[in-house]
């Protein structure tokens, strides 16, 4: 388990000399029915909402609901009107900026605290470290939907209601346990001997952490960082509860509460808002797929 964590990818069949396994036994017609057809259906269903989102975002209004004259699956004269409306006539750019600031700040705070906590639990092995590790894991399982009511009261009392700080302080409630847990797994995969060598050479614990362990854990830090960023970008219930004024909202809350008017749904603008709000995490994801997968599966494997 720790082995898989130490590298971004589990051992592939090619490395064990089992390349292809028994794949050669499968004939193509059979494979089409058992593998390619279901795979196609899965990929189609999983990706269709994104396609629909994108195509709606660039459809002129008159084509949007006129299925009789225009094929709904295609767009004849794509328009940037919805995106323009979103960027210049709503507070959308402000929401994007808020989301970026909040996500970056809470990710940074969480990573900084988690590195120390994970190092203390995994490597210093102080008395009771094992139980603290377990407590961290349990903390990760506490869902925001239980915490948001008391947290709303606290946020109000601290006088940070309706500010970015309210979210920067509360997001780490789920980010710190996650990052700590992930980094614990990562630190475990780094050989002890390296640290012992440094100790013998007279390095302090601080030097070991900053000069030996952290440079070796860069992939783990990236994994935890982008995952934490995505989690805070996607967060909804805290942002919905702790933020009241339009200019302080994050993208998910803003799109839902400000772009939806009761009389008429502007689907084009809504879909454009959803699309642009998804892009940053999707782009980040596409650059770091391996880190992403390893942090997701790493958290599960322990």
């Amino acid at each position, binding site marked *: 388990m720790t082995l898989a964590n130490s590298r971004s990818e589990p*051992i592939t069949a090619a490395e064990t000399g089992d390349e292809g396994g028994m*794949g050669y036994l499968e004939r193509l017609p059979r494979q089409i029915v058992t593998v390619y057809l279901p795979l196609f259906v899965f990929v189609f269903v999983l990706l269709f909402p994104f396609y629909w989102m994108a195509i709606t975002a660039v459809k002129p209004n008159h084509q949007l609901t006129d299925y009789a004259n225009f094929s709904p699956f295609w767009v004849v004269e794509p328009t940037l009107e919805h995106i323009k409306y979103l960027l210049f006539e709503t507070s959308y750019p402000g929401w994007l900026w808020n989301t970026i600031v909040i996500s970056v700040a809470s990710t940074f705070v969480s990573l900084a605290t988690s590195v120390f906590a994970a190092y203390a639990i995994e490597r210093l092995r*102080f008395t009771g470290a094992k139980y603290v590790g377990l407590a961290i894991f349990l903390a990760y399982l506490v*869902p925001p*939907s239980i915490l948001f009511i008391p947290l709303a009261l606290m946020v109000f009392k601290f006088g940070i209601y309706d500010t970015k700080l309210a979210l920067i302080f509360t997001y780490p409630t789920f980010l710190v346990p996650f990052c700590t847990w992930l980094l614990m797994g990562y630190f475990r995969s780094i050989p002890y001997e390296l640290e012992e060598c440094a100790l013998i050479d007279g390095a302090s614990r601080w030097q070991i952490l900053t000069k030996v362990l952290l440079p070796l854990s860069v992939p783990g830090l990236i994994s935890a960082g982008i995952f934490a960023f995505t989690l805070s970008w996607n967060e909804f219930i805290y942002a919905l509860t702790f933020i009241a004024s339009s200019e302080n909202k994050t993208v998910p*809350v803003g799109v839902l509460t400000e772009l939806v008017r009761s009389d008429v749904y502007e*689907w084009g603008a809504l879909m454009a808002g*959803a699309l642009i709000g998804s892009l940053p*995490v999707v782009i980040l*994801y596409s650059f770091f797929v391996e880190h992403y997968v390893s942090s997701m599966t790493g958290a599960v494997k322990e």
Partner: protein
Amino acid sequence: MSTAVAKPETQRGWRPRIDLSQGRNLLGLLFLLPAAVFLLVFLTYPLGLGVWLAFTDTRIGRPGVFIGLENYELLWEDSVFWLSVFNTLLYTTVASVLKFALGLWLALILNKHLPFKAFFRAIVLLPWVVPTVLSAIAFWWIYDAQFSIISWALIQMGLIDAPINFLGDTTNARASVIAANVWRGIPFVAISLLAGLQTIPPSLHEAATLDGATPWQRFRYITLPMLTPIIAVVMTFSVLFTFTDFQLIYVLTRGGPLNATHLMATLSFQRAIPGGQLGEGAAIAVAMIPFLLAAILFSYFGLQRRRWQQGGSD
């Protein structure tokens, strides 16, 4: 974590003024301090505060007084609350079973020797990466009562005559939100299980095949037992997050029609924030805790049994 554990047999001659054990505990405490303070203030304390709030009649803008079990007594009589409990259990059970079955299937497909495997694995995870609220808004549009693309496609195929009222009818609304939740959950289950599948040595399958095992037998007696520990963890996560789901329901139905899709989390939000009854909302949230604990304990002991069966430690 006690900081002062006496260790009399400190090695003499080598840096005598540093007691290694004490330094370790002190340093450990120091390093742990930021995270610990943070979690105690923003996680443990609110958790306790939530339990306390459930025993008070706190409203927004007015501190409450202790009223004992009154909130719970009210909820006990409240048919909407029981409906939300039923909905939550139904939602969690159906969605988790579907996510597991479809996720495992997708994982098995992706574990085959495919061209562009990495590419497929990458795009399959997309629904999980995108913010739930934003993809839920896309589903809202897909489920539109008049202009649903699904209705349109089915009408074109001649399968139905009138557009399906996806979110307006109680049964349809439940099915629709479950479908959207499953859509979002499949990638997580599939990719996690795929990671587990890749650790199963192909030689086991080869040996079984030589011994005459059928594909079903190989799945049943090799893949499934080897995968059980990771299945338990993945499904615990999946069940916990489905049980406490809020975003999807809030976007798609806000609990309607006729409270048919109200989950405990959405009901708690509705009573506490727009309704202003913080105490009652907290009581509903606290009522979720026993279910969550049951799920965690179930998987914990399930895991232990498996480890022991496989001859592992612990």
